[in-house]
């Protein structure tokens, strides 16, 4: 009986995470179209519902009502399993994200590793999708996805190592708490290069512009999901945006102090803003990163494929290596102003 209640409770908690997440994905698509439109001096979708607020639902409905075409030469089962394999890790990673102090589904000690694993796992779904479609464009997209993810994972992993060294823990809550004090204690300052490297490889990991080699409409049509229509395509879309939100969440946890208030440690403002729950700060920080995602997309053209590889291997990885050495020294010899107490 107890275990059943426990399981139910967990299922409820999962629902409480996944449902808002799905809705945010829906509205992220709208926000993306709106923001990009604004940067083009357009006004974007504004017809469906008030200010176009029902547009995402219209889009979802349209996708779900469409026929799902399965290419005759494809590998049926893998073809159908691929979208799920992409989406599942994108959602599963949310289990360890602490939304506020104590507000986390699974407070595991290797949280960072778990996230790292989950965010790289979804590339298998992409690979399978590309292979199972039995189409040359899908295959090329999948190959690109594999190469790109493998390259950028290294840089991302090293960026994580920097955070690990600084915080002395892989538990995401501990990492956030290690940044408490005031806004200057957040890791984006002492780990600035790693912050940038993490963000760039995060954009590359989610295959977003300007690193959307995997889709590359003008080169390989739509890459790995070229053969998908209707619900399958919707799942890929959902996964892509869920991953974006995930990367933004991790970025705010690791570098912008998660749920910590930016006014912490400032005498007067701290008390004024004390009533704001941590969750709000966390969501605001995520919103900032998501806006950045869209902003990048509106600004930069797609990289050439070899340049993406060059950037990953010859620029980002050396930078992270150098900065890891710097951070290690700072931590080891307690060099201030950030690393002068043991363990912080």
């Amino acid at each position, binding site marked *: 009986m107890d275990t059943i209640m426990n399981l139910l409770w967990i299922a409820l908690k999962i629902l409480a995470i996944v449902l808002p997440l799905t809705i945010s994905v829906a509205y992220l698509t709208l926000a993306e179209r709106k923001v990009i439109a604004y940067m083009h*001096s357009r006004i974007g979708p504004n017809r469906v519902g008030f200010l176009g607020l029902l547009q995402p639902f219209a889009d979802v409905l349209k996708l779900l009502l469409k026929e799902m075409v399965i290419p005759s030469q494809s590998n049926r089962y893998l073809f159908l399993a691929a979208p799920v394999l992409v989406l599942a890790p994108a959602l599963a990673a949310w289990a360890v994200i602490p939304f506020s102090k104590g507000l986390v589904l699974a407070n595991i000690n290797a949280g960072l590793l778990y996230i790292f694993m989950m965010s790289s796992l979804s590339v298998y779904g992409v690979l399978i999708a590309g292979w199972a479609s039995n189409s040359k464009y899908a295959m090329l997209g999948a190959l690109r996805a594999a190469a790109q993810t493998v390259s950028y994972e290294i840089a991302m992993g090293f960026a994580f190592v920097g955070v690990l060294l600084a915080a002395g823990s892989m538990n995401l809550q501990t990492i956030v708490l290690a940044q408490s004090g005031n806004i200057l204690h957040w890791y984006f300052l002492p780990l600035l290069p790693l912050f940038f490297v993490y963000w760039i490889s995060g954009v590359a990991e989610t295959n977003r512009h300007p690193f959307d080699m995997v889709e590359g409409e003008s080169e390989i049509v739509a890459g790995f999901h070229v053969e998908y229509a209707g619900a399958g395509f919707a799942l890929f879309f959902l996964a892509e945006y869920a991953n974006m939100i995930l990367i933004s969440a991790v970025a705010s946890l690791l570098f912008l102090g998660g749920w910590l208030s930016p006014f912490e440690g400032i005498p007067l403002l701290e008390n004024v803003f004390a009533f704001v729950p941590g969750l709000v700060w966390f969501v605001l920080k995520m919103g900032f990163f998501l806006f950045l995602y869209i902003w990048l997309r*509106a600004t930069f053209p797609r990289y050439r494929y070899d340049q993406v590889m060059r950037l990953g291997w010859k620029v980002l990885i050396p930078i992270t290596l150098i900065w890891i050495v710097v951070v290690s020294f700072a931590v080891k010899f307690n060099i201030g102003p950030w690393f002068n107490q043991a363990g912080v």
Partner: protein
Amino acid sequence: MTDRLKRFLESLLLLELFRGLWLTGKYFFKKKITVQFPEEKTPTSPRFRGLHALRRYSNGEERCIACKLCEVVCPALAITIESAPRTDGTRRTTKYEIDLFKCIYCGFCEESCPVDSIVETSEMHYHFEKRGEEIMTKEKLLAIGDKYESKIAAARAADAFYR
């Protein structure tokens, strides 16, 4: 050497990328130029070449004298004309058809017409639902002319100085 160092630092510090972001960021707050179509419309020139029409004189007589200049000049061979004398002895078209699928809306027919009979109106919102509807017969063209005569006349008057 210093040049290369400068370039290296510029790309390492992502300066150009920040400049790009700054530019798009500025446009984010700029005035939007969207024309909200069904409610708002972009202005059209009096020379706009839209749907065709055959005009009449103010006494109701059709202008066309079946000279077939438009048929000859049409680069898309979209116009088909057959003519015969009418009971009062004047030369008139018995068949005047424009195939709108062939038409490239070049406006040559309008330019060539000696009596300002075939014209292109500023009407651009029309559609066909069945095969064959794209053939504009004489009746249809005259009806369009009747419907839009005031607009057509105004457009001709506005452009008269340049002709």
